[in-house]
Every structure is written in C-alpha cells, then in structure tokens.
C-alpha cells in the first residue's frame, strides 16, 4: 500500500464512498458493526444519505424496494458474520425477481479469514447461488475497479444482486485513489438487439395468428418497455395478461387488459391463454405459479419467447421462436416490421370471456377485496403499493388497478413474507412526494415489524394496511381446501397493532366495519406519520379463483 506521489491517499472506506458517489448513489440502507467500521467512518462525513434500519434484512428489502421503484440500483450494507447472513433473504428475494441490488458486507481482516474468527461468515460462499455475482476484495488497490464492476453487473443484462465482501484491513488500508478504468469482463456480454432473422420469424407467426395472447412479465418493467408493449398490443389488438411481476407493465384500465394469469389469475386470462393459438411471452419465465400443470399450458399455442436471459428459453416450456435480447430493443425491432392483425372474432370471444367470468367477491362484512379497492379509489390509483406475501398479495394483484410500471412492488419469485414493509420504506425514501402503501397480512407484518422504528426515525409516512384475519391466511386456505380444514399452526394470537404503532411513535387506526374503511384511509393519508391501519377482515375469506397445485390453469376453483 505504498504512497504514490502527487495522489491523495485514501482509506478503503473513503474509496468506497467515492465510488458510490461516482455511481450516483444517493442513499444507502444499512446497519453498522465492527468489521465494516472503516466504511461507516467514511460515510459519517459523506454526502450520501444513510438509512439505519433495525435489522439487516430490512436494509436489504428497503434497498430492493428503492431499486424497484426507481430502476436504479439499491445499495445495502452490513457488517460481517450475522450482519451479512441477515442480508441473505433480501439478496435471494432480489435475485429471484431480477432486481439490481449491490450489497456491501464487512469481513474479518484478510489474515483472519478461514480461522473462524469472531463474526466471520463465508458470505461469498453463502450467497453464491443467490447473487448474480459476488466479490471478495483482498487488496485495497482492487477496490474501486471491483465496485465499478459490481454496479455494472447488477444493472446490465438481466439485473440482479451483487455482493462485495470487504475485509476490515482492506477498508482501513490507505492507498492513492485511482479512477477505475472501463469495465472489461470477457465472460459477460449481455445481449441487446434480437437476432433479426428470429424477429422476422416471430413477425411471420404473428401475421398468421388468429387467437394471439401477449403474456408479459417483469422483464418489460426492468427494460422500460411498457410503452412498446402497449404499442404491440394495440397494433395486434391482442389481449395482454401479465405475471405478478409484470403488473403495471400494461395499463390495468386498458380494454385489452386481461388481468394476471396463473394460480390466482382471472378466469378470463386463464381461459384466453388456454384457447390461444399464439402466445407471445415477453420478459417472463413460465414460472409454475403461472403455468400450473406445464404440459397443459397454452396447449394450442405456438410460443414466441422474448427474453434477455438465454437460459430462460426452453427452461420450462418448449418454444417455437426464441428471441434473446433486451425486451425494449426486440419489441422495437418487431414493431418496425409488424402489420396490424386485428382478429375481430377473437376480440369478441375475449370480451365474452371477460363478461362471463368476472372477478368478483361477496360484499358482506369487512372484505379484504373491498379494502384493496378502497385504497385504489382513495388514492385515485396514484399510490405506490408494496405487499407482503400470501392472501394480501393476491388480493392486491387482483383488485388494485395498476396503470404504471414500478407502482406494484412485491416479492414474486421467492415469496418473502416481511418484504413489503421495509420495501415500502425504501420506496418512500426514493419517492418522498408519493403516497406509499404496504398491503400486509397480520402474519407477514410481524416478520419485519421492527422497521416501524425506521419509518418513525426518518419521518417516512408509509401507510400499512394490515388485512388482519388472525391467520396465516394463505396457508389456512390451503389447509381448508386440501387438508380437510386441519388448521395446523396457522392461527395467530396477535398484538394490538394500534397500540403497537403508537408505542413506536406512529399512528394506529382500527377498522372493523366496511363504512370505516375510507375514513380510515383518508385519515392515514392525511397523517404526516407512518400509520398502521388494522383491518379486522372476514377471517375465512379465500383468494379466488384458484388453480389447485398441479392442475392445468383452465381448471379453477371459485
């Protein structure tokens, strides 16, 4: 670590902070500890906002929420050992949903690595299967270049989490700061445009189709292709369904909108997919929650699959025309050569399906669906919505009308309970002037409820609508339907959420009657504080329709 003449010597921590500035990072979510102290010391005077969460998992989810809301990389930070392992669920959540996240972890000094030192964990080993890539920096002179590579990998191609492990001696060491050079990774060349020959083949299939359906996923949102998707749908007059991750990629109030497909999709989306002769899959990965019994998925359809990740092609289903490339670039290529192909008979058939099988629920008592609709109405659809996982998530997906990308933020792939509240904190930090709601269950909210302190601490007026049925509702629903109502360990004895919110310095509102829903929401929105609204909903309300596990998606209950 020799001093070089004419250049200012910086500690590794200071270099990291400078690199973060270079990357345009404005906010870091983290939790300090011994091994990462040199970084925190440098952050102390830095022009970067640091949000101290109350648990490292909260920091990872908050950074994830920030990234999903903005499209910019989220940054989280934790110390070695348990600090680092507490990030793992958050990193895995981001990996499954292709979220650009950069996680920095402290590590014991290089000389101590492998000796089971205090708070040592092999975090690069542990996170190998749940990161896009990770690094252990062993030399302070490699630090700046590594940070640049980490951000490059996290944000390009199919985005994903990257972890950088920083031994304490590396961040404490001083060296002359060298501007990192251009990123050269010979094993990493994310594709952009699709192969023109494949695009032509796709256009030919589309021209011959009589019953096309567009099936879009989160890739449309990550590549910023919502506008191209709308143009494609309108050119073809083809109905559009999306995955959970794709909600917001297509306007939910558009006449071509089919709603979500799959296990808790609309009946008409599932019927349309089952009847279509061409399925145009865009930035989606044929997840089992979407396909149901995969052999019977879209049985009459030729399949065009557009994805930036070549490994997604043919992973779960057979594809007729694969196009590997950035969704936005490929859709532009397609739009250039496509002709209108309206298929009026198919449009009529889809309209009929929509009329015949509407999404509906019985309005007696305090219904969760009514709460979700009320949140939509009171916020005029302008809010950013996060969810937890389970019934709350599915009711939100079904009953909130999402019209813009990055307004529905939910853990789809990993299905992480406890995601929504810290994610909402991240979203509120990213979008200080917008309304943010976490639609939660009474089970999920308790998995990261400590972040109430963070929300109060940073005066983040996040609203949490707890759909409280005193159960782990989705598990109870499965027990009701598939385990003869044997409710094994799904009933919850809950705290008084109103008092709990108040104890943290937040506001709490109890809602027990349908007529109290809207006033409570208005009160929450008007409040400058974080608010918990405890909705005591119908305890055994189910999420319907439902495709039982292992069944084809046209076989729905409810």
């Amino acid at each position, binding site marked *: 670590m020799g001093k070089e003449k004419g250049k200012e010597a910086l500690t590794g921590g200071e270099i990291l902070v400078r690199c973060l500035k270079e990357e345009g990072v404005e906010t870091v979510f983290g939790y300090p500890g011994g091994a990462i102290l040199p970084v925190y010391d440098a952050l102390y005077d830095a022009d970067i906002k640091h949000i101290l969460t109350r648990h490292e998992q909260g920091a990872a989810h908050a950074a994830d929420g920030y990234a999903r809301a903005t499209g910019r990389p989220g940054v989280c930070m934790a110390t070695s050992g348990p600090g680092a392992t507490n990030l793992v669920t958050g990193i895995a959540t981001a990996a499954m949903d292709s979220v650009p996240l950069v996680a920095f972890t402290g590590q014991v000094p290089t000389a101590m690595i492998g000796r089971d030192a205090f708070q040592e964990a092999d975090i690069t080993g542990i996170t190998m299967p749940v990161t896009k890539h990770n690094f252990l920096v062993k030399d302070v002179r490699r630090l700046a270049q590594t940070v640049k590579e980490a951000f490059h990998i996290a944000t390009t191609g199919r985005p994903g989490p990257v972890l950088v492990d920083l031994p304490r001696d590396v961040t404490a060491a001083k060296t002359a700061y060298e501007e990192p050079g251009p990123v050269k990774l*010979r*094993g*990493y*060349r994310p594709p952009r445009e699709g192969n023109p020959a494949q695009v032509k083949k796709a256009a030919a299939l589309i021209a011959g189709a009589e019953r096309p359906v567009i099936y879009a996923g989160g890739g449309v949102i990550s590549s910023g292709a919502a506008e191209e998707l709308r143009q494609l749908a309108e050119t073809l007059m083809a109905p559009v369904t999306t995955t959970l991750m794709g909600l917001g990629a297509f306007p939910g109030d558009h006449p071509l909108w089919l709603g979500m497909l799959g296990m808790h999709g609309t009946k008409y989306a599932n019927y349309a997919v089952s009847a279509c002769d061409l399925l145009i899959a865009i930035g989606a990965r044929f997840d089992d929650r979407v396909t149901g019994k995969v052999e019977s998925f879209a049985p009459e359809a030729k399949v065009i699959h557009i994805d930036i*990740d070549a*490994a997604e092609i043919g992973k779960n289903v057979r594809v007729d025309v694969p196009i590997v490339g950035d969704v936005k670039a490929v859709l532009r290529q397609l739009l250039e050569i496509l002709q209108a192909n309206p298929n009026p008979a198919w449009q009529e058939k889809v309209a009929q399906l929509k009329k015949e099988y509407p999404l509906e629920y019985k309005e007696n008592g305090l219904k969760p669906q009514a709460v979700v609709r009320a949140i939509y109405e009171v916020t005029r659809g302008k809010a950013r919505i996060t969810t937890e996982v389970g019934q709350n998530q599915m009711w939100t997906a079904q009953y909130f009308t999402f019209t813009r990308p990055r307004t529905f933020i939910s853990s789809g792939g990993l299905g992480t309970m406890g995601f929504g509240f810290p994610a909402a904190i991240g979203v509120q930090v990213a979008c200080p002037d917008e309304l943010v709601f976490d639609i939660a269950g009474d089970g999920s909210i308790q998995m990261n409820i400590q972040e109430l302190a963070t929300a109060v601490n940073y005066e983040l007026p996040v609203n949490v609508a707890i759909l409280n049925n005193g159960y782990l509702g989705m598990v109870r629903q499965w027990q009701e339907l598939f385990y003869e109502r044997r409710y094994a360990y799904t009933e919850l004895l809950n705290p008084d959420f109103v008092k709990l919110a108040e104890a943290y310095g937040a506001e709490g509102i109890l809602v027990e009657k349908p007529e109290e829903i809207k006033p409570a929401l208005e009160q929450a929105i008007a409040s400058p504080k974080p608010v918990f609204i405890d909705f005591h909903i119908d305890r055994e309300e189910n999420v319907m329709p439902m495709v039982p596990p292992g069944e084809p998606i046209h076989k729905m209950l409810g």
Partner: protein
Amino acid sequence: MRRTFSVLVENHPGVLARVASLFSRRGYNIDSLAVSRTDDPSVSRMTIVVEGDEGVLEQVAKQLRKLIDVIKVQDVTAEEHVERELALIKVSADAAARAEIMQIVEIFRAHIVDIGRRTLIIEITGDEKKIDAFEEAMRPFGIRELVRTGKIALLRGSRTTTASEREE
C-alpha cells in the same frame, strides 16, 4: 445422453466452487471434471462430462455461460475431437502373476511406473473405453487402488476453444 463441455474460465479463486455450486443447485450430474490452467495463465480450462437429457444438457451450457467468470462454453461432443484420460492403477502382482500382467500392459500400450514387492503401479492413457477395458483386465489380479484424471479433450484440426474468440 453424455456430453463433454470444454469450459474456459477466469483463473480466479472460487471459480470451481461457482461451477460446482451451479451443478449441485440445479441437480445436474457431473460424470467427470478436470481442471487446470491453460497456456494463458489468466485462463483455466474445465473439461466437464455431463449426463442428462437434451433439455438438461442445453440448460447446463446456458447456465454455465451465465456465470460471470465463465468465458466460453463449447460442447466438444458434437465436433471432431480427441479425448484422453489418464489412470494410475495399483494391482496385486506376485511373482506368478507378473508376466501375465506385463503382457496385458504391453497389449494396452500402458506403462509400469512403480514396482513394489507385491504390487505394480500401471499408468495408462486413452479414451474412456480403453481405460474401462484395462480396468476390467486388471480386476482378476486384484486392484488395490485406482485413480483416474477425468476426461480432457481438444478439437481436431486448426479449430480451437480460446478465450479471445467471440462466442457464437
């Protein structure tokens, strides 16, 4: 179906772990694996023999390519190539058996590389079938220990798998 992949990777610590982790996580079966650095010290070559159906084998190649440290993946099975494996076999060889063993060694063009009082170590190179056949031929004498390197392979002719070449 079995395929032999020639995989060029960055010669970084942890690369083998990344590849192994990928195989174990996705449930792929490695038949054999040989790793060493290439003429370019920044690049290592892994020769991986994988068993699976066509879909699995396609995924193996694609998932390997997704690893940042993987520079190139080539399925050499589909191309004209030379493949070799080396084995060291320690067999029981008392005075009575030696002559016969040496005769078999001769036929297989193997070499005796160590002579002990009751054992011989034989070195043999060849393709997998040859080594399997030799192993069978030695079995009646009593195999004390056996080690195989796993397969290595190169494309025939002037075609190469190099790091600089763009992936097709």
